[in-house]
């Protein structure tokens, strides 16, 4: 039993716990009880039997108790056995050489039994703990996988719904092109189809914004390109207005998600075309204050309904007396997208009339030189 140093579990000079004190006293009591009963039975059994009883007690104690109390039991029972049972009794002295050998064997066996069994238990405990930790990790991983899976499903569902909704619109568009431009009925269908397309795109975009499946991908860009991309899809609606753009030429390169910002601008501009009377100007002003890009879009329409400055960014909000059509989603999406990019936007009625939308966006800049 040479492994007393390597085996002794982490040399922990921890204070003896209350439970351990209980185990020490129980151990002593047990040895005392066993010794007295064996002492009574000694004439019928002989001293070897007593040794076996002690060994069994140590093994059993080892399966429940800590190392300290068990080793203490081993030492105490060896001494008790020697003192009370090995002839000559009531002395620690041993006469016969074979009794001497027996005593030494008992001492060694008792100590190593206690030691081995407690070590086994300690190992079991660490194993159980590892197992528990692994289970815990597995559960965490499982949960993460479930989450990713549900997100993926959500996206797939969104994609397939998008596909289903957009395909008929695309087919109508292509078929109308085939009919040619001359037919006034075809023109009406075309207008309605464009409106339908806008509604479908808004609903899909709103879902995307709300599901937070949106990750801005900033890259260097020029604000002129962003505005160009914003204007292109709504050229027809903008054709009745004059667009006045100022400040874009003075801006350096900006690092932002140009696709998302183009969409925001597209929605804000489209909103302006719906309220501002035909023939009026729509002004876009771009400027940079520190590292914040500011975009102002001003129309010359009736301005905002009193007290609706914030309400109008709510989903499905429709201004009273607003023209038919529209889902009340465009501005909600615009604000959602701005916030996804860590920016924001607000609206107010311009002191000299018309609505003004102000967009703020933190951007990285470097001079375009």
């Amino acid at each position, binding site marked *: 039993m040479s492994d007393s140093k390597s085996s002794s579990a982490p040399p922990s000079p921890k204070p003896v716990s209350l439970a351990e004190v209980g185990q020490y006293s129980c151990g002593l009591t047990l040895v005392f009880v066993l010794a007295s009963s064996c002492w009574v039975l000694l004439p019928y059994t002989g001293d070897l039997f007593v040794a076996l009883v002690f060994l069994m007690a140590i093994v059993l104690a080892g399966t429940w108790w800590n190392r300290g109390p068990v080793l203490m039991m081993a030492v105490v029972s060896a001494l008790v056995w020697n003192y009370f049972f090995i002839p000559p009794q009531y002395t620690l002295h041993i006469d016969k050489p074979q009794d001497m050998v027996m005593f030494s064997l008992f001492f060694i066996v008792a100590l190593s039994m206690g030691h081995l069994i407690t070590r086994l238990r300690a190992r079991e405990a660490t194993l159980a703990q590892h197992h528990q930790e692994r289970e815990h990790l597995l559960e965490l991983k499982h949960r993460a996988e479930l989450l990713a899976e549900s997100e993926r499903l959500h996206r797939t569902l969104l994609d397939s719904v998008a596909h289903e909704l*957009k395909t008929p619109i695309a*087919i109508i568009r*292509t078929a109308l092109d085939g009919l040619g431009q001359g037919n006034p009925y075809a023109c009406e269908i075309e207008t309605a189809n464009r409106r339908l397309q806008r509604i479908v795109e808004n609903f899909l975009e709103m879902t995307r914004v709300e599901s937070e499946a949106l990750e801005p991908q900033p890259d*260097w860009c*020029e604000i002129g390109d962003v505005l160009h991309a914003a204007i292109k899809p709504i050229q027809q609606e903008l054709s009745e207005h004059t667009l006045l753009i100022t400040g874009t030429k003075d801006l350096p390169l900006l690092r932002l998600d140009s696709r998302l910002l183009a969409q925001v601008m597209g929605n804000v501009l489209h909103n302006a075309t719906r309220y501002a009377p035909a023939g009026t100007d729509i002004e876009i002003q771009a400027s940079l204050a520190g590292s914040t890009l500011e975009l102002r879009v001003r129309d010359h329409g009736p301005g905002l309904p009193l007290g609706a400055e914030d309400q109008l960014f709510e989903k499905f909000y429709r201004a009273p007396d607003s023209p038919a059509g529209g889902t009340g989603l465009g501005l909600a999406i615009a604000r959602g997208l701005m916030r996804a990019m860590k920016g924001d936007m607000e609206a107010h009625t311009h002191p000299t009339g018309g609505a003004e939308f102000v967009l703020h966006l933190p951007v990285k800049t470097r001079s*375009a030189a």
Partner: protein
Amino acid sequence: MSKALIIDDEQQMRRLLRMVLESRGYEVCEAAEGQLGLQEAAFHRPDVVLLDLGLPGMNGIEVLKRLREWSDVPVLILSVRDQETIKVEALENGADDYVTKPFGTAELLARLTVIQRRRFTRQSAEIIVGPLKLDLLHHEASLDEVPLKLTPTEFALLKVLAEHAGRIVTQNQIMKQVWAGQTSDPSEGLRVHINHLRKKIGEAGPRIVNEPGIGYRLEDGS
């Protein structure tokens, strides 16, 4: 007569595209899914392929990759919006251009014509895009016969765009050809050079149009 292959899972879409293309003198064959599409491509040897990205089973990108293993037929991608990353993936895997559903017939036909004009046929050392002329031999560019003063990088950049005139070129493709991936923040450099080029070309020449999240297109407005 040009032969066109339509690979799209929507029967109505295929029928309409067939009508549109046949009215413009194309001979048309079609397939409802990727595997069949590849077989049709091998069998009919089309001059141009219209490929829907959202195919069931083998997706559009996979079809494109397989097709590119043995054919360099011009491919036009048909896709829905909000698929910028997948569009870029398609373009970088050999697609020539894309249109977004719903698309106008005029736009579709224009794209088809441009991509069939075919990548740089390099028979002459000159590229001409409207009033813009590039002399590859002497590395000189001129606009309406007036020489443009371009730096070597600007010339290389303009060359890539002009070679693909009318077609989209992704940011990565430009960067690979102009810088061979050797700048630290390439996209910033690219923007700066595009900016300079735009100023030098001015209003008179072809426009360099940015498509957010995808790349650039040199459009000859004249």
